[in-house]
Each structure stands twice: as structure tokens, then as C-alpha cells.
């Protein structure tokens, strides 16, 4: 049998076997990425909304920070959090190094700029008449923000999708702050790195397929939610 056929067979075996190892890794992936996305959008969407609606001292700086943050390499963020949580580091006493909690924090830091940046773009893309109407009605910032998010509906939905995409596909930050410890901090992306480095391609491919399926399922779910829920919010 040729090489690729062998890899496919191994992947199928690993998939059908669906052992506790793979199951634990999937669960942790969903948990870490899910919590990171939720926290990231809960902070990032309001931030992006305010940046899209208002100009205030420091808003330009904040916008630049968000734009830079959207493209910052995950390994750099991972390194920063590793230094923070390192035993001798400033937050070392918390004992968070190589824990899922540290992974979540690093990923939240990656998700916030994406959520904020995409939201800000969607808000600024609203019809000028809509923004003017809010001013004509003399609405306060919380009311304007709520209206703007609903108006920008699918644009804000895209912010959630993009944030989830950023964290689920990311390997650098979780590898560095998590340490890729089996049963503790290993997630699908770090599993793929680990397995392919040892030339065990079957499990790597199986993990990759699972990653794809998760991405697809989450996207379908979010698309449904933004279509139905945001309209009636």
C-alpha cells in the first residue's frame, strides 16, 4: 500500500477507535476555545462598538492597538503570558503556568482584538442615516450601542465567527503557555504538531478532520443564531 493510503487507514483506525486520549483532547479543545471565544467577544464586541460609535481621548490609540492585535503572532502572545505566569514571573505565585486557565487567558487576549476590530468595522459600515438618527433621538451610549449591534447584525455575527476561528486554529500560544501536556493541556492543534513531529500521521490527520468538523458545526450554529436571534433582540 502506498504512503497516503496507509495514512488514511491509520487515520480511520484512530477515528473509529476514538480512544480516551482523543476524546479528552477534543473536550479540552472545545472547552478552552469555547470559553476564550465567549470571554473574547463579551469584551471585544462592546469595545468595538464604542470605538465605532464614539471618538474620545485615546480612541485613536485604542483603535491602533486593536488593529495591531488582530495580526499579532500567537506565539508572541504565548511567550508574553508564559513570562507573566512563569514561577519566577510577576504572576508566578498564581501557579497558572502550563494550565488550561493560562491557555484561556492567552486566547482571550488573541480573541478580543479580532472581535473588537470586526465589530468596529461593521458599526462604521452602518448607513450614516442610522448613526444620525441615533443622534437625532439623543440616545445615550448604551442604547446607541445596543441599537448599533442589532443593526449591524450579521457583521457582529462575523466578529464571533472570526474570534472563534482565531482561537480554535491557533497553535503557538496554547503550545507555549499550555506546554502540550497529555491529559492536561493538549488540544487538537498541539496534538497535530506532536504527532506529526513523531511521524505518527494517522492520529494527526484524524485530529485535523475533527478540527474541521468542529469549525463547520460552530459556523453553521453561529450563522443560524445571527440570522434568527439578532433580528428579534
Amino acid at each position, binding site marked *: 500500500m502506498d504512503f497516503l493510503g496507509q495514512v488514511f487507514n491509520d487515520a480511520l483506525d484512530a477515528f473509529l477507535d476514538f480512544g480516551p486520549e482523543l476524546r479528552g483532547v477534543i473536550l479540552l479543545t472545545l472547552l478552552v476555545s469555547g470559553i476564550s471565544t465567549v470571554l473574547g467577544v463579551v469584551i471585544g464586541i462592546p469595545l468595538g462598538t464604542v470605538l465605532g460609535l464614539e471618538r474620545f481621548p485615546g480612541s485613536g490609540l485604542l483603535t491602533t492597538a486593536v488593529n495591531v492585535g488582530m495580526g499579532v503572532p500567537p506565539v508572541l502572545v504565548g511567550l508574553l503570558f508564559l513570562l507573566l505566569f512563569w514561577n519566577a514571573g510577576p504572576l508566578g505565585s498564581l501557579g497558572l503556568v502550563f494550565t488550561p486557565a493560562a491557555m484561556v487567558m492567552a486566547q482571550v487576549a488573541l480573541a478580543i482584538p479580532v472581535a473588537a476590530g470586526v465589530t468596529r468595522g461593521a458599526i462604521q459600515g452602518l*448607513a450614516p*442615516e*442610522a448613526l*444620525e*438618527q441615533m*443622534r*437625532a*433621538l*439623543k*440616545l*445615550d451610549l448604551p*442604547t446607541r450601542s445596543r*441599537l448599533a449591534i*442589532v*443593526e449591524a*447584525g450579521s457583521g457582529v455575527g462575523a466578529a464571533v465567527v472570526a474570534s472563534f476561528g482565531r482561537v480554535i486554529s491557533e497553535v503557538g500560544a496554547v503550545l507555549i503557555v499550555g506546554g502540550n501536556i497529555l491529559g492536561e493541556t493538549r488540544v487538537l492543534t498541539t496534538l497535530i504538531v506532536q504527532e506529526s513531529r513523531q511521524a505518527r500521521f494517522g492520529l494527526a490527520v484524524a485530529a485535523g478532520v475533527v478540527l474541521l468538523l468542529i469549525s463547520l458545526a460552530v459556523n453553521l450554529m453561529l450563522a443560524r443564531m445571527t440570522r434568527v436571534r439578532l*433580528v428579534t433582540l
Partner: protein
Amino acid sequence: MKLTVTVTVPDDGSRLAVEGLELPGEQTTVVFGPNGSGKTTLLRSLAGFEGPTELQDVAYLQQRPYFFRGTAGYNLGIGLNAEAAAWGRQMAEEMGVGGLLDREARSLSGGERQRVALARALAAPGKWILLDEPLAAIDRADRGHLLGHLAGVLDGRSVVVVTHDVEVVATLADHLVVIDRGQILEQGDVATVIGSPSGVRSAQVLGVANLIDGLAREAGDICILEHGDVSIAGIGAVNGPGRALFGAETVTLRVPGAGISSARNDWLGTVETILHRGQLVEVAIDIGVRIVALVTPGALVDLSIEPGSEVGVSVKATAVRIVAA
């Protein structure tokens, strides 16, 4: 209380600079001008959209009000407290859109949306109410009723309306400001400004130099307005106190007794004054009420018109608008 404001829209300095705009409080000021005269910019600026404004506490209805996702009722209530929202709903009811408040706002027709937006602007807290072409999207058939209603609601409040609709001027205005190309041509009490515009340009802009109050009644397909012994036929659907409007240029003069005119309005009058206004001549005639005609200097000579002379005066009924006063 009267505010005198100066409005300058910074941008490039030349866009709009209106000096000495008079805005009497507790009255309706109508700013009238042709399209592109700077009306909307002026109102936006008064509303504070172009920089700091001298008006405090403003409720502003845009020319094209925007509706957010949600029902018309939801849009009506955005940013209003319970009391104001209830009042807004009542307004909507009175303007005939009360039954539409549960419908998706964006599914309403232009006219329906305009009424909801009007109800929202009237219910919003604000000392000054600024309305930009409040009846632009309303069907002609509904205008009379709605204008009458609006006049009642606005009575005693401090209002600025911009429009290029003479009917709106005649029904709503206490104080009239005529502007063109960002400049005030004239301003003052509505009857004074419409009755005797001080310049050719403002007479042209207004298109109306004759405003006659009286008692109107519908008669078949026309409307008759009685003022003392003078009766004026025009277009309108008014029964009760009314106001006839027609332009000075629609009035034709002839030698008395020379032929019978096809015009429904055919009077005999005495020339009061003759004023030269640029290329044209403004002739004021007493026919039982004072009316103004705009003619060429040649016509003046042909008819040998001078103060005190008798003259035949006619206006087609289709040139006269009769609105509720």
C-alpha cells in the same frame, strides 16, 4: 422671547453662513426656499449636527427619517420614557397610523413611516422642535387633514420647519423666513412677508404675493373663499376658515369692460400703487381686498394704468390654492 442666531457651517467656509436668523419662541417659524437653498443644512446646523448650536434642547425630524429593525411601535418608543411614548402612540393614532405600530417599521410605506417619525419627533422631549419637510412623503389627498392636525399640535410650541411647500407655509407659519443660496432674503410675520415681498427674488422664490383669509366652502370640483364682498375660486378642499394663495405673476390686468375673461375670478378694481421691481412692475389693486399683480412695463403703458385708475383683474381658478387657516 426671540432668539437671533447666526449659523455658519465651517467645512469650507462658503457652504452656509446665515446671519441674524430670527426664531421667535412659542411660535412656528417656517424657513422657505427652493431646493438647494440651504434649508436642510440650516436645520441640521440648528440641530447641532454641524457643530455647536445656539438652540438648547432640540427634537429633530430629519428629511429622511431612519427606522431601526423592529416594529413601528418599537421605533416610536426608542429613547422615550413611558409617558412620552404613550403620548407618541396617541399622536400616531390621531395621524391614522395607530393600527400599524405592531408592523415591522421597514415594511411601512413612505407616507406611513413619515407619520410615525413625525409622532416620534413630536413626542420627544425638547424645547425646540425642528422639522425638515415634515409632509414630503404624504399623499396630496391626506395633506390637508394632516397639516391641520399638525398646526393644532404645534400651536404654542417653539418650532422651526423647513419646506419648499407653500401650503405648509400658509397653514403652519407664524413667522416666515425666505432663504435662497444660503442667504436670508427676508423674514417676518407671515402675512406681511407673503403679502408684500420686499424683493423680486423673494417674490419669485415664494411664488405667492397674494394671501387672502376668509371663509371657504367646497363647490363642486372647486373651492370658493369669501372675503367680505369678494369671492375667490380656487383649488382646495376646505370648509371653514381658509386662506387663498396665488402668485402675483398669475394675475392678469385688462381695460375695464374689454371683453369677458374665461377666468373664474374676474374682478373690477382700483389701482393703489405701482412699484418698479427690476424688469417688472408690481401693481397693487383694491378689489375689496388688496391684491398684487406683476406685469411688464409695456402692459402698464398699453393699459394706461396709473394710481387711481380702474382696471379689470382676472386669475384662473387653477392658479389659486385654498388651504385651511
